[in-house]
Every structure is written in structure tokens, then in C-alpha cells.
């Protein structure tokens, strides 16, 4: 018997991708540094670090702490600002022919809208991810993603500025009582898909200095430690909104981890923290996913998206 190569192509709304594995925002800068380790065009898409309107220094150091099977980060969205990003960083991916999913972040609805407006003419940008896990400076620093109203406003503002052909993904935070409420608000506001999940709010205290380890006090928890929470969020969102494309994110380190997200309902996945431990992780995960599908006789990735939701035919 001939083992056929599984068909890894995936459809995120009207966005078709040759395969479902992406980098995660903030874990691949703007792609260039990873090109030393693998071919950026080989993966589904390169997701860039969330960019803001103006240059940002980010927070003071220490900015990270390793935790059991995870890490905390408090970078504070350091970045060159949208102008320098469009002038110096993004063209690299364009010239390479990589698919770019550009992540944007803002402190106000207006900032998100103006970022989207700046991206609109970049016809080659494949998609935009809206990082709504940022503090809303106009509302006591309340994180947009924690409030369905604020999330909805950001998403519609972004959607309005971008041509219909550019899909918009809203990136959800797990730090909410009911993630499906936020998911629904984003979709109702025009999001074509959802990125699930961003980091969990965590912190660590240095038992010698007796102070928080991070200069920013709290930080975002990522890595395999959070995978069970991420899988649960994808599961809940897919169950509530079965027709909405989901990009699964959180602690993916192997192809089997990626498959777990696909079975929960994700049509694509992002590999974040694992890249720090293994710079070729995204392409390795892709290869392992391909093997895992082949070993299970699954011909098309698309056939098993959300498969774990199907009713059990026979109880044992």
C-alpha cells in the first residue's frame, strides 16, 4: 500500500493556506532572525510581533522568568512603530514570498483603526491579527479583550479600514469568565476568525530579593503549561461558533500538540514559546503533524478539524 502525503492545506474563511502552522506573535519578531533556521515560506504564515502606531521602548528588565513548563514575559510591546515596521521589517517577508499575518496593537480604538488604515495599501499582506489583550488607555487601562463591548469596537474599527479580501483575526485572552461571549462579540463585529489564546496573566516572586521577578510585576504565562487551558478555550469557542475559523495557540511544542488543537476545532495553529527552546520548532511541528496524520490514515487535515466534538458512535 502506498502511503499518500496528507493534504495539509487549510481554509480560514476565504484565506487558503498550504498548511496550518504559523509562528506566534512576539515569538518570531518580524521573521528575519528565524530564516537562519528554516525556510519561512515553508510554513503556513509568519505572524509578526504586535506593532503599534509609535515606536515603543517596552518595559524595563527583567522581562522574563522561566516557570515549570512555561515562562512569564513582560515585554511591554517593544517595537519600532508602524512607519519603521513598514519601511524596514515587513518588506523582508514580502521579498521572500512568505505569507504574513500582521499583528496590530493599540491603546485606543482610534490607534487600532489607524494601524489598519496604514496596512490597507499593503495589498500583499495575507491577514491581520488584532491583539486586543492590551490595556485601553481611555478606560482605566482595562484590557479590551476582557470586555465584549470594547473588543467589538476595536474589531469593527479595524474591519472598516481593511479591504474585505484581508481576513481579520481577533486574538482572545483566556483571562475571562466566559470566552465565548468575547468570541461572539468579535465575530458579530466582523472578525473573520479568532486566534485562541493569548497568554494567561501570571507572576513570579524572587524569594531572595522578595520582590516580583518581572520589572512589570505581572506578565504573560505561555508554553506547554497552559496548553490544557488553550485546548479548552478552542473547544469552547468552536462549540459555540462552529463555523468560525480558529487559529489555535498555546503551548504547542510537537505535531501531536498541534493535532490536539485541530481536533478541538482549530483550522490552523501557532507555535510561540517553543521557538525559544528550538528555533526550528514551527517547521518541525509541521513535519510531525504531517507524519501524525499519515500514521492515522487521515488524508486531509480539514477532515479532522473539530473531530473531537463529533458524537461518540458507540460507548465502549
Amino acid at each position, binding site marked *: 500500500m502506498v502511503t499518500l502525503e496528507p493534504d495539509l492545506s487549510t481554509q480560514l474563511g476565504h484565506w487558503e493556506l498550504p498548511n496550518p502552522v504559523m509562528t506566534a506573535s512576539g515569538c518570531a519578531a518580524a521573521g528575519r532572525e528565524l530564516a537562519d*533556521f528554516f525556510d519561512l515560506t515553508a510554513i503556513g504564515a509568519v505572524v509578526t510581533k504586535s506593532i503599534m502606531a509609535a515606536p515603543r521602548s*517596552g518595559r524595563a528588565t527583567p522581562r522574563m522568568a522561566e516557570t515549570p513548563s512555561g515562562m512569564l514575559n513582560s515585554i511591554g510591546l517593544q517595537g519600532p512603530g508602524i512607519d519603521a515596521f513598514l519601511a524596514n521589517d515587513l518588506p523582508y517577508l514580502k521579498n521572500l514570498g512568505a505569507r504574513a499575518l500582521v499583528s496590530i496593537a493599540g491603546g485606543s480604538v482610534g490607534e487600532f483603526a489607524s494601524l489598519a488604515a496604514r496596512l490597507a495599501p499593503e495589498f500583499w499582506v495575507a491577514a491581520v491579527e488584532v491583539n486586543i489583550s492590551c490595556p485601553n488607555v481611555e478606560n482605566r487601562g482595562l484590557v479590551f479583550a476582557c470586555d465584549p463591548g470594547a473588543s467589538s469596537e476595536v474589531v469593527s474599527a479595524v474591519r472598516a479600514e481593511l479591504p474585505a479580501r484581508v481576513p481579520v483575526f481577533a486574538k482572545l485572552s483566556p483571562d475571562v469568565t466566559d470566552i465565548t461571549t468575547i468570541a461572539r462579540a468579535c465575530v458579530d463585529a466582523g472578525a473573520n476568525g479568532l486566534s485562541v489564546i493569548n497568554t494567561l496573566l501570571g507572576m513570579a516572586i524572587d524569594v531572595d530579593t522578595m520582590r516580583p521577578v518581572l520589572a512589570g510585576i505581572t506578565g504573560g504565562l505561555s508554553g506547554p503549561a497552559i496548553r490544557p487551558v488553550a485546548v479548552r478555550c478552542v473547544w469552547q469557542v468552536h462549540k459555540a461558533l462552529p463555523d468560525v475559523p480558529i487559529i489555535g495557540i498555546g503551548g504547542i511544542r510537537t505535531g501531536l500538540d498541534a493535532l490536539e488543537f485541530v481536533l478541538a476545532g482549530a483550522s490552523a495553529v501557532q507555535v510561540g514559546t517553543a521557538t525559544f527552546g528550538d*528555533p526550528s520548532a514551527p517547521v518541525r511541528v509541521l513535519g510531525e503533524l504531517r507524519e501524525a496524520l499519515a500514521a492515522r490514515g487521515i488524508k486531509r487535515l480539514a477532515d479532522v478539524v473539530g473531530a473531537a466534538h463529533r458524537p461518540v458512535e458507540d460507548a465502549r
Partner: protein
Amino acid sequence: MSPTQVRGKVVATRRVGAYHHLTIAAPGIPERTRPGNFVALAVGGPQTSMLLRRAFSIYRVSEQGPTGGTVEIVVGVHGKGTEWLVGCRPGDVVDVVGPLGKPFALPQEPVSCVLVGGGYGSAPLFMLAEGLLARGCRVQFVLGAATEARLFGALDAKRMGCPVTVTTEDGSAGVRGRVTDVLPELVRRTSSEVLYACGPMGMLRAVSDVATAEGAHSQCAVEEAMACGIGVCMTCVLPVIGADGVTRMSRSCVDGPVFRGTQVRWSEVGTVPADTLGAPKVGVR
């Protein structure tokens, strides 16, 4: 030279004072290495809870060997990852990424140089010395540590025929005191034009100050906590003044670890100076 990732194999481990000298077969890395580069090692094995790599200055490389090219590092036990690493036995597999970072810049002219190492920080200085000697530079070492066991490389320096001054804080070897107690006099006496340094932040800052005071250049290799080592995570930053005079939070893994002493805003390391590009406005968060 662009870094690579290889499944390395431990060839030998040896205690040296308070440190462990590890030789790792890591084909592909030696031929790309320049003095001041570092490697990032995965620690803990397949089911470990430790996700992040650990960074180590490259002490020596050898392009040939029965097991392919080797990389040597000097490890001080700090926490759980280094603890695991020094427990490795010959034959154990260690994933290596390298060479990483910007190397030391070498002078165009055959000038006199002082190489200052603090603790295991002296590890990268011997490859550097070879490079300098090959260019006809004069090389002298100042090696310091808290105590004799924490000194590294005095013998290497002597073997290379270079003058060495040793300082220890407790006086257990050489001059009692710090490297900077002996440095200004040495720089003047040897008319040194470049100071190279690797060691703790406080030492680097002091070396940079001596260089400025004595009208010399300095090249300092910093050590900031790193999550990725390859420039994608933004955890390893410190305030660095660019060629345009603007301070930015620069990544020590790709823009460093070697910086000119005058570039780094030493007294503000660990903070975001108010005039940094994109610094939060005072009163605004």
C-alpha cells in the same frame, strides 16, 4: 556568520576550580565561531519542565576531532539548568544553537590590549587573545574573581606567553581587590589602546569608565537573561546609544553581547531611560 542548530554530544567534562569545563561535539559550529560568540544549549532532556536555552560563551573550538568539530564552554552552576548540564556524562546528547551574537571587534592596527575577565567571564578571552596576537597586538590579561576557585584561565594566559595580573576579593590569589584596582596603572604602563572585558555588569561598567578615563576603547561582553538567544523574544535588552545618538532598548543576543563601552548606559541598565526611543511618557503608563 549565521548560526546553526545541531544535536551535540558531550565528549568530556572536567572540573576546573568552581567551574566545569565541557567539551561538546557540535559539527558546523566551530568553523563559524569568532571570539565573543556564544552558544545556547537546551537543558533537561526530553520531558523537562525547563523550556528555555542557556547561554554560554564559547571558550575554545576545534574544527577537527574524532567526533567532528567540538565547542568548549566553562560552566558555573547557577540554578537548575546549569546543575543539569554539569551532571551530563560523555555520550549524552545536548542540542546546541550557535555561534550566536556579535563577536569582539579587532583593532586594525597592532596595538596593545588589556583583556579583563571576571570569574567564568574570562572564558571567551583566550580565543580573542589568539586573534589579537595573530594581528601582532600585544596582549595582557587581568583576571579577577571573588576567590581563587572562581578564577578561570590564568594558566591559559601564561601558556600563551601573555602577562597576567590576578586579583581576588579575598586575596586568596594574586592582588587582593578588584580588577579595576590594578587596571588604570596597567593601561598606562602598557599604553594600551583597547580594553576587552567580560564579566559581571559592575565590572564591565568600571572597565568602560577606566577606558574612557585613559582615552582607550573598550569592548564589553554583557550578560543579560535571555529566553531565545536568537533575537526574537525581546527579553535580553539594555539601553544602548546608537550611531545616531538615540538610545534604544537593544537586544544583547543579536546586537551584543559585545558592545562598545561608551554605547551602553551602564548606570541605567535595568531601567528604561526617559529619553529612550519610545519610552513611556512620565506619568503615563
